[in-house]
Structures are given as C-alpha cells and as structure tokens.
C-alpha cells in the first residue's frame, strides 16, 4: 500500500492526459473545486465538529471580490483574491465571536441564518450588481486576467491550491492545534476542563477555514466569469461542501477528496445520461445514493474502505 499516495498524486497530475478533451478537463476542474471547498470546510466542520451550513458566506465573498475589482476598476480579477481573503477573515471573526456561544444544531442554524441574510442583502445591493450579478472579462485582455479558452490551466491552478489546502490540513492534523480541535469535537466541556482554550481554538479554525473557502470562491468566479447571489451565497453552495466532506469522511485528511471524487463524476454522469430527458431522474439517483451512504456508512467512504480493505488484503494473501 506504500504506492498509493504517490500513485494518487501522479493520477491527479496526469489526469488531463489520461482523459483528454475540454469536457473531461472541466469535470476535473469541478472535482478539484469541490475538493478544495470541502477540505476548507473540513477544518472547522470536520476536525472541530462545528457543523457550519453557512460557509457559502465565505465562498460568496471570495467569489464576488475578484469580479468586483474588475467591474469597478477594470483590474485583473485575481487582484481581488487577497481582498476576498481579508474580508472573509474579518467576517469569520465577526460571525464566530457571537455564534460560537451556540452549540450543535443551534450553531448550524445560526450559520444558515447569517448566510441567507448576506445573500438577500447582496441581492439588493446595486454596487455589487444586486440580483443580476457581476461578470468578468469575457475574453481575457492578457494572461493575468486568467480567462483561458482551455480548461487545462485552470486544472493545474486548482490542483496547486488543493495541494496547499491539503498540506495545511496535514500540518494542522499533527499539531497541538489539531489535537485541541479533536478534543473540542469529542466534548467541549471536557476539553475546557483540561485547559483547552476552546473559544480561541474554534475561532482560529473558523478563520483558517474561511480563508481557504474564500479562495475556492475566487477560483470559481474567475473560472466561470460570472457570479450572482444564488451561485455565490446560495444555501446549496454550503450544503454541497457538507455533503462532499461527510460522504468521503469528515475529519479525515483525504475524506473531502474522496467525497468529491465520487460525487462530482456521479453528478456529471447522471446529468449526462438523464438530464436531457428532463425527468428529474438525475436528482432521484443522486439523492438515492447519498441516502444509502448515509444509512449504511455514516462515517463516509473512508470508513467503509477501512472495514473492507483488511478483509480484501487477507483474502489476497490467502490465495
């Protein structure tokens, strides 16, 4: 099994040459984006066990700022990325301070409420295009507009960001901070009694998570060249992050990646096969699989594999 990590890295690196063509690359990009967002969510939602269903607020902020920079001042969208990160950071502090007093479902509900408020507010704010949204440069003026005809450059940009997010998560996992997070997840009161600075740790996790989610949003809007309140701040954006992470295995390093690897091709395939018929079969199949997974393996695919792999190993040794 030593081969599996390098093999995985190689697969991701060479995927565009294995499945060639813009459509497959585009699916690759969609997969990477889902993996980045879910990994970002995983830091606070998985490791710290604070299930936020309002992460679209950070995604949306990150998505809006690049196109806003372009819209207002004609700057290359990428210039808005750091601004998005800063705003998300500030938002994380402003939201985290009051909401982290809440626990469990109440915290989730509060995050939904805040994200919805922001969505409605943005939808009526003329400066950011109100309900109609903002557009990026339709045809890039130069390479720094990051408006490529091919999906290939996006694939490698997204892959690089994913690598950074995963490496950071890996470091967090091994650090004292990471142990604090897991202690909080296991029991907040117990953690506090052992001297874990609960509030500060949760806030730090949310800030880190918010910054990465914001970057995911920026990547989305730069690549799509369009953002409106629904695709930036809509509740489905948040829900997708939760589903991807939970499906693959929350609070594990590669869980979100596995979730995205299953979910994105599944979405694409069901839409390709049944979408044109307009029967809604896409959703039925997609929803059905999620229900099955939730019923039989709530720990995600990662846990399922850990049950199955040793048995497979034993059998192959016996044979």
């Amino acid at each position, binding site marked *: *099994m*030593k081969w*599996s*990590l390098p*093999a*995985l890295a190689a*697969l991701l690196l060479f995927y565009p040459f*294995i*499945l060639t*063509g813009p*459509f497959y690359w*585009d*699916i690759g990009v*969609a*997969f990477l984006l889902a993996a980045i967002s879910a990994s970002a969510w995983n830091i606070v939602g998985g490791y710290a066990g604070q299930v936020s269903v309002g992460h679209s607020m950070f995604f949306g902020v990150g998505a809006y700022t690049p196109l806003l920079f372009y819209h207002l001042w004609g700057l290359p969208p990428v210039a808005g990325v750091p601004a998005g990160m800063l705003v998300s950071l500030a938002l994380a502090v402003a939201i985290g301070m009051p909401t982290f007093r809440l626990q469990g479902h109440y915290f989730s509900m509060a995050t939904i409420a805040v994200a919805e408020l922001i969505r*409605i507010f943005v*939808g*009526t704010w003329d400066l950011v295009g109100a*309900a*109609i*949204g903002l*557009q990026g440069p*339709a*045809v890039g003026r130069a390479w720094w507009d990051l408006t490529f*005809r091919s*999906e290939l450059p996006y694939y490698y940009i997204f892959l690089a960001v994913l690598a950074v997010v995963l490496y950071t998560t890996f470091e967090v996992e091994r650090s004292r901070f990471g142990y604090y997070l897991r202690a909080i997840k296991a029991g907040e009161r117990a953690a506090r009694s052992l001297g874990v600075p609960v509030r500060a740790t949760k806030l730090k996790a949310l800030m880190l998570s918010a910054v990465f989610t914001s970057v995911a949003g920026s990547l*989305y809007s730069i690549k*799509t*060249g*369009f953002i*409106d309140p*629904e*695709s930036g701040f809509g509740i489905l954006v948040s829900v997708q992050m939760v589903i991807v992470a939970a499906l693959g295995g929350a609070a*594990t*390093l*590669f*869980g979100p*990646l*596995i979730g995205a*690897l*299953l979910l994105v*091709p*599944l979405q*694409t*395939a069901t*839409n390709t*096969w049944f*979408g*044109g*018929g*307009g029967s*809604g079969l*896409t*959703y039925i199949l997609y929803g059905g699989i999620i229900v099955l997974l939730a019923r039989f393996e709530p720990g995600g*695919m*990662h846990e*399922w*594999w*850990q049950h199955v*792999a040793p048995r497979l190993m034993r059998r192959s040794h016996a044979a």
Partner: protein
Amino acid sequence: MRTASATMAAALAAAAILMSCPPADAAGTVKIGILWPLTGNAAAAGQASKAAAEVAADIVNNKHPELADLPLAATEGLPNQGGAKLELTFVDHQGNPSLAQQLATRLITQDAVHVLLGAYQSSCSFTATAVAERYGIPFMVGESAALNITGRGFKWVFRSTPIASDYAATYMRFFDDLKKEGKKIASIAVVNENTDYGTSVADSIEVAAKKNNLPVAIRIPYSASSTDVTAQVLQLKEKQPDVVIFISYTSDSILYMKAMKNLDYMPPMVIGDDTGFSDPSFIPAVADIAQGAMNRSAWDIGKPGSTTYKINEMYKAKTGRDLDDTSGRNMQGFLVLADALNRAGSTEPEKIRDALAKTDLKPEQLMMGYNGVKFDATGQNTLASTYLIQLRDKQYQLVWPEKAATTKLDWPMKGWKQ
C-alpha cells in the same frame, strides 16, 4: 492515511467508469444543442420550451404544407443542405450558471453540435454564451431578458427575443396611444419581484418613463416568496397611480390580485409583465376578480385556420396545454436558427454565423408577433416587439397594437365589479 489514498484509487477507478459516456454521431444531420432548465425552479418553463422545440423540429424535418408561411415548413429537412434533418440534443443546466458553462463545453466538444440554443435564465445565458464565443460556435438566445447578454462585443451570439428595454418601450407607446384617446395617465407604479428578472425589467421601465416625462409614483421591489403583500397594496392605495405594472412570478401575482380585492383597491388598470400573469394557474385562480387585467405577450393563438392556431394545435396534441409566450419565443428562436442553417448551406460555423447576421424575416414568416427578425451588430433583433392582451372571462384577448387587435380595449378594468 495509506488506506485513505487506496480508497481514493478505488474511487478514481469508479469515477473513470462513470465518466466514459460515448458521444453519438450521425451523418446527414445538423445538430442543435439546447440548454434549458429541465429541473429546478424554472423546470416548468424549460419543459414547456423543450416540447415547443420538438414541435419546431417536426415542422422543419417533415413536410407541413399547411404551415407554408413559415420558412422550411413545406419542405422536408433543410433543402440547401441536401435535406439534412435537425437533430436536437437537450441538456439540463438546472439554472446553475457554472453547470451551464460545463454543458455548453460538453455540447461543443463532445457532442460536436453545430449551433446552440438557450438558456432561459439570464445567469446561465451569460456563462453559456461566453463558451460559445470562445469556441466560435453560433449561439441563439431564445429568451433571456438581461440587457447585456448581447452588446458584450461578442461575435457569435444572437438574440431573437425582445428584451427588457423593448418591453418598457412597448408600455410607453401604449400609454401614448391612450393619452391620444384622452385617457388620463398621470402616473404609474412599478411593482417588481427582486431577482434579476424583475429588477432588470423594472429598471428599464423607470428609465423609459423618465424619458417620456411620465412620473413613477412609486416602485415597490418585493420577494416573490412573500406570503403577505398587504403592506405593498396599501402603499399603492395611498399613491393612487393610474396604472400599476406588476413584474411578478406566479404565486405572488395571484397573491397581489387577492390582496387588492380584500383591501378594495382597484387602479384604473393593472398590467402584468408576462411570467406570472401568463402562468397556466393564474387564470383559474383569479379570473373572476381580475377582469380586464392586461398582460404582455408576443404570442397569440389567433383565429382557427391561421398558422399560429395550427401550431398551437400541434403543441396541444403533444402536451395537452396551449402554447405560452415563453415557450413560443424559444420556439421562434429555434425557427430563426433553422432558417439560417438552411441559408448557410453548410455546417461550417463561419457560414452559419454569416447567414444569421444576414437574417431578414418578415412578420408574416414568424409565429410570434415581432415586426420581423433582423440582427444589429451586437446580435440583438432590432424588430422584436410584443403585443398587449387583456383578460376577458377566462381568456386573454389581443387588444394592442390596434392593427393586430382582435378585441377593443376595456378601460378602466372591471376587476371583481362586474
């Protein structure tokens, strides 16, 4: 962690199997890729438009001498392309702009379609047309109202439908005609749902009214999911405008009519901007309290025996419902595209684009009430226009412009006082 990456290798294999779906190919056909929301919020409009496009394909692909007014109806397939048939590939973008972008890529690169049609929601038209522009594939926008879908300097995007500014101009011309007849239009009110559709139409009306020195007494944006609109109706009641224009979706427009009855407020005229007022459920719900309410539509079923009547019969046989304005405009977009494909005489993108740019269809060659189809340099149809219709009993009747009208305008509206 090792097991994790092994899980992933297994998942990757599964993913690869899921994604390998072979593209279909057939000779002697011209392929049209169509992007509409077939599921989600706007599924009803997408599904109805899909049925309309299938009727349109039937008209082009088979002999329909009874519809000889329409280009390509009498013949089989596209005569200039050796009788090639149109092959439609529908995709469902679910109203998601990012998915619309991905599907446009798929239609162009995997399915190798020759032209694209779509995408209903303006947000999805924005992203899907940008893909077509990058690949140099002609894209016909059948019905998306946002102003700047055309006019972004795109070379490959054409739009046959009237847009927000055309609707606003129509209302202003209608008011001018009324004033000439001596009716009092001192001020209007605009009530709009607050997402992209309502906002862009209301903005255009405000701009046009200002240009025509017509005071807008009040503009009321609201959320289409509201369950109570009493406050909004009371605001209207206080301002007493001569005309109230509603840019609303279905349940909210019904809600407004009911609230107005409950609060006993009836302005001289209510005009609905299509959409909610055209929804199949609007008339059964409020016909008896909204008598004389007006609506805009470029579609009119017409008299028995007319081309539009026959088209409606074909559509009805397929779906059991009358054709509506939205699907009608999409269907018209499809027919304009088919006409250009025929004149291009080739499936080369450049030739199709040139043929589209040279499109010059007369009103009698159209199924919709446009003044023709002729594209300007931005790709927008300069002859797009719309009718105004008025609710009588359980049906809308065409009342404006006068030269097309089948019934005389009733002013003021009767509402529930019959």
